[in-house]
């Protein structure tokens, strides 16, 4: 087995306690939620936090509707989001993305907030939240603030979370006449995405009134493709418009070659998967499955 370096362990009993611990223990302390990214990195000795603050006792696991938004607690497990009827009622993208995140063992334990905070450039929910225009709620001893999902990720493994801050909730606006979808290609079940595209499309009187296009693993800034979205807004949901937007999404991507595939293939996938997701989301918005 892989063996981590020494660390100290604290178990937070409340959000305020967690924040106090973060303040007291300083920058070498890390929150541990599901632990499915942090602990492997520690075992590989790639991460060396001096303190772990365990937040698994905190009451932050929920998916509910409030104020015209879906509110997802940061400690909601992937499995809970996958199985949430509330989430599925409004956005098929949640179930479609969660179903292809890692495997059941990871999904039982890994959390929505943890996924966003890990900020892996191939992470699925980052693209989903970016596509949906979600808002991330953060708390510190100074109070609460919100950050748009599209401003939350500053780069690979880098977020807007400040020292002493904890992500408590993710909020997703509920939209009418809207369909969403997630399309991912992986080398094997449970692998990180080679590329993935998640979208929502809202229709109004036969035109696309709003849309969001999120991409992961293809090197787009903030996991989204605004130029492709702009090209679709106000347009008819036609195949030609879908194809044009998908091309813009591919144009926005800047993938790097690695063992999951060469850059040209990933760019092709950005196009292909965006087109597929748009077709499916539009069909759903139009009342199809």
């Amino acid at each position, binding site marked *: *087995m892989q*063996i981590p370096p020494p660390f100290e362990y604290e178990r937070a009993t409340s959000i305020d306690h967690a924040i106090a611990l973060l303040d007291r223990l300083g920058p070498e302390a890390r929150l541990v939620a599901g632990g499915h990214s942090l602990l492997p990195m520690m075992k*590989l000795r790639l991460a060396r936090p001096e303190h772990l603050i365990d937040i698994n006792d905190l009451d932050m696991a929920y998916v509910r509707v409030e104020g015209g938004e879906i509110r997802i607690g940061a400690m909601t497990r992937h499995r809970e989001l996958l199985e949430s009827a509330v989430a599925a009622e409004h956005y098929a993208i949640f179930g479609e993305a969660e179903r292809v995140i890692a495997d059941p063992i990871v999904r039982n334990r890994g959390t929505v907030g943890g996924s966003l905070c890990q900020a892996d450039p191939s992470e699925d929910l980052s693209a989903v939240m970016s596509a949906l225009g979600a808002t991330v709620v953060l708390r510190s001893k100074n109070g609460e603030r919100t950050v748009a999902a599209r401003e939350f990720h500053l780069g690979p493994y880098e977020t807007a979370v400040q020292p002493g801050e904890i992500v408590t909730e993710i909020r997703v606006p509920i939209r009418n006449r809207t369909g969403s979808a997630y399309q991912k290609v992986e*080398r094997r079940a449970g692998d990180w995405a080679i590329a993935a595209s998640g979208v929502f499309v809202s229709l109004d009187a036969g035109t696309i009134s709003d849309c969001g296009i999120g991409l992961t693993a293809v090197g787009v800034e903030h996991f989204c493709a605004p130029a492709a979205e702009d090209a679709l807004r106000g347009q008819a949901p036609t195949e030609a418009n879908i194809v044009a937007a998908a091309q813009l999404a591919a144009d926005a991507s800047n993938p790097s070659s690695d063992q999951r595939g060469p850059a040209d293939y990933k760019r092709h*996938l950005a196009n292909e*998967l965006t087109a597929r997701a748009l077709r499916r989301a539009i069909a759903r918005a139009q009342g199809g499955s």
Partner: protein
Amino acid sequence: MTVTEVPTSAGGNPIGFGRMLRKEDARFLRGQGHYIDDMDMPGMLHGAILRSPVAHAYIKSIDTSAAEAHPKVKAVITGATLETLGLAWVPTLSYDTAAVLATDKVRFQGQEVAFVIAEDKYSARDALELIDVEYEILPPVVDAKKALDPGAPVIRTDKEGKTDNHIFDWEAGDEAKCDAAFAKADVIVSQDMLYPRVHPSPMETCGAVALMDKVTGQLTIWCTSQAPHAHRTIYALVAGLPEQKIRVVTNDIGGGFGNKVGIYSGYVLAIVGSIVTGKPVKWVEDRSEHLMSTAFARDYHMHGEIAATKEGKILGVRVNVLADHGCFNGTAQPTKFPAGFFHIFTGSYDYEAAHCKVTGVYTNKAPGGVAYACSFRITEAVYLVERLVDCLADEMKIDPAQLRLQNLLRAEQFPYTTPTGWEYDSGNYGPTLLEAMRIAGYDELRAEQRGRRERRAAGDTSEPLMGIGLSFFTEGVGAGPRKHMDILGLGMADGAELRVHPTGKAQLRLSCISQGQGHQTTFAQIVAQELGIPPEDVEVIQGDTDNTPFGLGTYGSRSTPVSGGAAAIVARRVRDKARVVAAAALECSPDDLEWKLGRWQVKGDPEKGKTIQEIAMLSHSSLELPDGVEGHLDGTCVYNPPNLTYPFGAYICVTDVDPGTGEVKVRRFIAVDDCGPRINPMIVEGQVHGGLADGVGMALMQVIAFDEEGNNLGGSFMDYLLPTSMECPSWELGETITPSPHHPLGVKGVGESATVGSPPAVVNSVLDAIQVRHADMPLTPAQVWRAMQGNPFRTDLAIT
């Protein structure tokens, strides 16, 4: 051999061949297995290995002082320490040498550099970071195709006068005759193909616990060894330790697949550590260490050619291989065969001639090469010929099933001597392929495929592409006849000992060792079949060299062909002895007795007889036995197989390929195996299932690639992918039964058949779907898409 009804024991098990649940599973399923990391002993210390971060570098200095100052560290061992013991370099199984710890330079990323022994495993790992090694980086040899270039960096500068990276040239077959066959051919197809480096990745990594008792001089090594007896002898020869004082014990092993045949640095270091500290020392590697440093498999760059008449009669096949052996030639195979059994590459077909040439080279990669259920490189051989046949079918626009049926060896040709000298013991290939085609519904599948292609040509792109791939393999297992086969001079015959206790319960002692194959069950069933003792009354003892007879271990599907032969013969010897005892008890001549269902009975008077259990008690009793007949009911045997056994099979794989993404879905997989009679069909099917999953993994996702600096790009299970149930269809199995004429039970090995046979079926299927002549494994979505663009990439290098 016909399948006969066998009686059922009180425990509900067949007293002989047949389906029964594995005896070992009750233990395994309750978490009662005993693996190397379960070992704990009073005062046991823990070792950890410092490994090279780079592929090729001089070691300028090693400073261990900070590590030694760690309060819980007991010792730090370096190559310099080992040099004083004469153990820095040790012989490999291929008569090369390998460094236990690097001395002069490191030759692959992950190579062992130092060994820390501490009070606990955490401290041992922490102390590794306190060792300061100064490296002077050298350019590495990463691409095997450049290893022999003039001016290539010389890896084995430790070898006096070595000026290149060449290891060996080896050939088989008749080159001139092969050229003549090609000269008259109407069609010649040639193809470059890579069987990339893969890793067996058993669930349990390698490990050892060593204890040198300085009072008695007894060295005991508990380790993950597929060949405990061979290990004992090698330790004796290499370290100069007295062999009677060495005991190698292998408890449960969590999978081996050939990865655990050799002796690893960690085992030697645990021994040295125990000698140095006087305490038991445990070393268990982690997953990354395992993937980066232990025996890989394959890495064959092949250029194959196949020749045929315009009617589709195959005339000959020839191949040039560049074999990447890594930085030490550490492959485990019979001495005479530096390329293993690769020269069985003519496969299942009838040719006039064949020729192969293999060149082995050093590269800055981990050593190994024969592993992963490969039957000593028959995986590479079968992949080559089964791909070539499909390339020929593609070239000639002949259905690949038809081309195979036309060229398969015919039943009347057996025993058949191949153009490269193998003597196939038995075979009846045509019916096996036809059975696979029947189960698959081959004609209907082709019709479905035609329909899809027509609809796609007409502009309907809603359906995935569909591929149908076949492979027909002939395996050669059960190494082997000792006059032809040895490893480091140790002939490959296996011993067996059988003791029937007074109450009729038996112990069978074997030299081979189960790594999950179910030996406790299969071998008990062999004794049951031959002696009529219920399998639950037969305890199979293996893995402890002090408690079992000598033999070469379990790999190459050899347990049933070799140790199974030994078990059958020793049981028959005991049965013969039981006859004499029964005759004495019944006061008749042994010739008057006949054997029936575990009982010697008087011919013509079946009421009079003695069961084997009764005879067991009589053997140990005061019954007077004839002169020259000793008491007790025991036997021993050494089985030297007269030939390999040659199981075979026909596989068909149906895939759906998404042309927009390159994703492959294995829709169906039909596997018809002929391994002769099946001792326990359930265990056979389980082995086939595992091998098919291996094949899907190799064909679609597995590869250990290296970047240009020699960094291993497959050092974790996030990078090196094993298939899951999601990638595996519900396997559809069939069987035909062609007994081996020379094996005492008519059985053939089967452990590796599916691993050998399935990769080409999957690859042929995907390439059939996308209608591309060839692309190298693994056929990841990226590789499939690139192949469809006419631009497949090198899978053994970093993707750029």
